[in-house]
């Protein structure tokens, strides 16, 4: 198929496949490449860490309370003598999982609503856009807190303390962050649906669903991928904020935000306790944001690099 596409004979630069071209553009953003490596290291550490670092997260040792970094405890210990490195590995799994899952929710909801609004030419499109604007002007953190306050106990009874709060946090964070994706998808759809290649598909008798799935959606994905990447970072911050306010995961689940919440009363005697999880959140978020920036360079074909 690719061999049949005629490249313009006068083109001076060699043409690459779209993926290779994107990779070439992505590589030019040095910080984005460094960030991708950093994030990969973080993910590998969090996923495979427990295999190498076999200290339990719940081992209490009162002889080693609030100790700074040492060989036995590379990131020090907390007020019960628990190993902070082990707790951070455990918490990192939750924080990253929440980020990814909430991103999936917001991208799926946003793409659905944006696609519906972009394809309909009547009242439905207007109503959906009004809904999007309404959600954009909702105060997110207060509403997030309100929803968790109201639904926490009900879900805890059904899915258990950790599972229930995980589902709740993912659905609520994702459910409050789909609006930018919806707007992007709608804008893309409005312009793409009038393009010649879609008209050609329509003339060939392609059904509406086929037009959307085969022709419009793949071309609208670039901005969605970028927005989705940044959503992961925002979801990680949102989850950490909830845990930091003491309203996220249950107290014995050491997410990064929860570690900070527990550490904030011991800043004068055990600063390391707050610094390591805080740095982990910062590294994850800044790396994801830079990756999003690099993807913007890579996927926006109009930008000349």
């Amino acid at each position: 198929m690719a061999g049949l596409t005629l490249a313009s004979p006068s083109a001076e630069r060699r043409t690459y496949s779209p993926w290779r071209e994107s990779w070439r553009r992505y590589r030019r953003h040095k910080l984005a490449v460094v960030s991708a490596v950093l994030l990969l290291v973080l993910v590998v550490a969090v996923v495979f860490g427990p295999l190498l670092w076999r200290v339990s997260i719940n081992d209490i040792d009162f002889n080693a309370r609030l100790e700074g970094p040492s060989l036995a405890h590379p990131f020090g210990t907390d007020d019960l003598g628990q190993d902070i490195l082990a707790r951070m590995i455990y918490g990192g799994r939750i924080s990253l999982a929440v980020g990814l899952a909430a991103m999936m929710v917001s991208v799926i909801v946003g793409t659905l609503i944006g696609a519906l609004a972009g394809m309909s030419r009547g009242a439905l499109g207007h109503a959906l856009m009004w809904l999007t604007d309404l959600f954009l002007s909702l105060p997110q953190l207060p509403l997030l807190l309100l929803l968790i306050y109201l639904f926490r106990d009900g879900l805890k009874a059904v899915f258990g303390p950790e599972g229930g709060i995980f589902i709740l946090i993912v659905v609520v964070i994702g459910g409050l962050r789909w609006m930018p994706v919806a707007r992007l998808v709608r804008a893309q759809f409005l312009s793409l649906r009038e393009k010649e290649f879609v008209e050609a598909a329509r003339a060939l008798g392609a059904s509406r669903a086929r037009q959307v799935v085969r022709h419009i959606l793949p071309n609208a994905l670039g901005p969605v991928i970028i927005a989705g990447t940044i959503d992961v970072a925002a979801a990680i911050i949102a989850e950490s904020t909830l845990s930091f306010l003491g309203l996220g995961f249950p107290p014995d689940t050491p997410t990064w935000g929860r570690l900070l919440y527990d550490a904030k009363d011991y800043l004068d005697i055990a600063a390391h306790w707050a610094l390591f999880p805080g740095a982990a959140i910062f590294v994850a978020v800044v790396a994801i944001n830079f990756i999003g920036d690099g993807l913007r360079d890579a996927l926006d074909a109009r930008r000349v690099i």
Partner: protein
Amino acid sequence: MSQYILRRLLIAIPSLLGISLVLFVVLSLAPGDPFSELATNPNVPPEVRLALRAKFGLDDPIYLRYLHWLVAMAQGDWGFSFASRMNVDTLILQRLPTTLYVIGSSQLLALLIAIPVGVYAATRPYSVFDQVANTLAFIGFSLPTFFTGILFILIFSVKLDWLPFVYTTDIKATGTAWLGEQIRQAIMPVMVLGLFQAASMTRFVRSAVLDVIRLDYVTTARSKGLGQARVIVRHVMRNAMIPVVTLIALQIPAVFGGAIVTEQIFRIPGIGSLLISSILANDTPVVMAVTFVFACLVVLFNLIADLLYGWLDPRISLR
């Protein structure tokens, strides 16, 4: 212009109603019954419970309950806080000025940083200054407010011992000493919130100015012999500020989120910390009212942004 203001005011009403509807639906979907305690209390006969339910309208259809709730909210009857033993509206009015003071000063600080830095970076795109500012801005909005708050306390209170890290309302001093203390204790919270805002605003300002600075009318102004400062301030800034105002308005919900966190870290007695403490105390009327106040503030600031928009670009208010 007055017609434009009126039209904007009228547009704000449906969004307020929409927000109140969202809040009410959330509350009514939530599990739990305000009379569940009575149900398990053997001293209360079931007839009394049912009569109470009927009296408070809990068996009415949902749209009637929404209307009742809305009318009560509009009349200022916001309920009673069980944790603080006072009416919710007086409680919120006590706390609101502190929140507005902190948010207002931090927004001011953010503008004072973002506009000069963003404009200067845009006049010299891809220079060293631009790249440093860009990277710092990127780091700035990737640092969550709760972590910057902790870092600031660690550096300025614990290590250097320059600033107090707990905000107090009853400072034992008068006159200028009182004012000095008041400013001193607000420095850290305002810096935390302001720097976070400044980071994203700088990027907005930079890209908006970059869009405008290449336009023909700017070249015309330059070729008339106007100085660089005058071209930037009089010709570029006014047009560049239009998209910036919109973007700042879109950031307002995030500002309130940051304010809640900041108030919690520094124990500022504003409505953000009130929200957290009432959630922990299961004080539902206060939780609902504070969320609604935050929503109203967002709508109010969007309205202000719309009005600024009309002032910056007269074409909009004529349409």
